[in-house]
């Protein structure tokens, strides 16, 4: 689909300060957060805080996660097994819901707008982006916070190791959020121009020709951290060095060689 999503701002988990208290001031919310939820919410708040001077409303919050809140899910499941279904702490169950990060952002800011979560393995972030692009296009939203997070846990790593996933890939984790707008605040602004789901992984030549791009960023190189929503962070890397001349970049995802996607961004 052809899109016009101007990237107003972004934040990634790499940019977070060690103390995230200022980003998540609510102590009650904070003390219940697993590292995953904390990182995701803090990254989102980091993206929003940088924007706070604009004073403009957010019209939608769309989050993505391939595997969701693994630590909390595992903690609750372990308790169910080890305590034989008795005297279970409710907190990890509550926090294990896939939309926890999106919900906590809404709680922190009192945002009553559209707020959904996609959990579709390697295409979770692309799904969120497509939803955002459609809303910006139809004019039902002008500014949308879209982001993704996934965590690496010892159990998940071990299970996927036994499945042979790390023979070709390096495990990883992270969060990235972008504030997208229907119209740019300043010129030039990086812009997501297309989201496509080709049937098979395309080689560089085909990508250059089909999407008319000068540069290609791939999420499936041996050096890349491989997690379901890694594409969100790679997308921010594409936007980062926009110095001087305008170029078109294709960000190519193909998580575990199963679900190829191409995001075309001009910057």
């Amino acid at each position, binding site marked *: 689909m052809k899109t016009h999503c101007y990237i107003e701002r972004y934040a990634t988990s790499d940019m977070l300060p060690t103390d995230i208290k200022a980003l998540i001031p609510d102590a009650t919310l904070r003390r219940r957060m697993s590292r995953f939820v904390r990182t995701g919410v803090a990254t989102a708040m980091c993206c929003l805080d940088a924007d706070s001077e604009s004073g403009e409303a957010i019209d939608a919050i769309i989050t993505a996660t391939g595997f*969701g809140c693994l630590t909390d899910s595992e903690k609750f499941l372990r308790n169910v097994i080890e305590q034989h279904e008795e005297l279970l702490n409710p907190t990890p169950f509550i926090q294990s*819901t*896939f939309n926890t990060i999106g*919900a906590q952002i809404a709680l922190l800011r*009192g945002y009553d707008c559209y707020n959904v979560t996609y959990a579709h393995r390697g295409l979770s972030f692309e799904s969120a982006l497509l939803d955002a692009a459609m809303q910006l296009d139809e004019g039902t939203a002008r500014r949308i916070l879209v982001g993704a997070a996934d965590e690496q846990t010892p159990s998940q790593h071990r299970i996927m190791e036994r*499945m042979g996933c790390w023979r070709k890939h390096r495990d990883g984790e992270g969060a990235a959020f972008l504030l997208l707008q229907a119209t740019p605040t300043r010129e030039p602004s990086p812009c997501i121009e297309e989201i496509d789901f080709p049937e098979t992984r395309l080689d560089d030549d085909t990508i250059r020709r089909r999407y008319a791009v000068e540069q290609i960023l791939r999420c499936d190189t041996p050096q890349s951290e491989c997690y379901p929503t890694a594409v969100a962070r790679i997308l921010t890397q594409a936007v980062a060095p926009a110095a001087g001349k305008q170029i078109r970049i294709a960000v190519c995802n193909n998580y575990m060689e199963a679900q190829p996607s191409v995001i075309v961004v001009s910057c």
Partner: protein
Amino acid sequence: MRIAVTGIGIVSAAGIGKEQTLATLRASRSGLVAAPSHFRTRHALPVGEVAPNNEELARRLGIRHCTSRTALLGIVAASEALADAGAATTDNRRTALVSATSVGGMDLTENFFPDFIRDDRSGRLRMAAHHDCADSTIAIARYCGIDGFTTTLSTACSSAANAILVASRLLRHGVVDRVVAGGTDALCRFTLNGFKSLQILDPAPCRPFDASRCGLNLGEGAAYLVLERADETRNPYCLLTGAANTNDAFHQTASSADGQGDYLAMRKALETAGLSPLDVDCINVHGTGTPNNDRSEGVALRRLFGNEVPPFASTKPVTGHTLAAAGGIEAALAVLSLHHGEIYPQLNFTTPDPELNLVPVTRYIRRPIRNILSNSFGFGGNCTALLFSNRP
């Protein structure tokens, strides 16, 4: 642009398929059983189970490989919906699947995990491979031959309603020509214990909006609608005229006292349809039976409709609360209600809550319906309302 509902597939404790489900609802019967039978648990609590076990479901579908119950239920409902919609006018690459689930393949994971935590070299890997939410969606798409855009939403108990909302957007934008949208969730130890730990499971059949209500009963199931652009279809069931998702932004699990999220979702769904509260003839309420949910939803109904709250009922005493599938199952029931001109009664109601003074429909009624709302609310303040209409 108008969006039409052209197919329905449904499976729950009320039955497998439309016909069984309608027979159960019209007879004011409940599908709840006294305790779960498909998995081992020490909690003998009433639940809405789908009768066949995994082996029977797999045999019925001709599936031989390890498949989660969530996927099996989803396949039953999605394939019924596609068959109901009839032959595709377009190729399968122009058909999308937007599915919702909250537990994914947890029913398999929780059988893998005891071995794994004893020794991380043990546990059958094929049972861990179905853990994530996408797995059931991909299994459904493969079984049904859906080759277009496929995705999964997971927003707790409003998930499937959001899948239907997103489906209408995909159609409006011409991303695809047909969408199979809904949700699926199997009952498992994880969710039963989760809701038990929250102390919101009623040991007796649930009584939404009743003064004596004290919790919900869990259920399982799946339902999908086939949606298409109205100008490209003939004789659809009805139109999806309004849809909205809002956030209560009050608490991670509790709903606000003023029902703000619920109220906004219903109001915005009406706004998108260009209709007023007076146009609503019936509401399939979320109505879980927890004191908190029904109070918030009741307050929201009063705020939107004042003293003219339309006939409403919760079908959860029949199906149990099917979590991510609930929005799909209840949307399907709303469509059937509209199509057949009938209101399915709410069971177990005797005494109005003096705080709300709202009385649901308690006996089966036949009457024409122009517009029906279906409410679905979930953890994280997630509130969704869908509006189905007989006339544009």
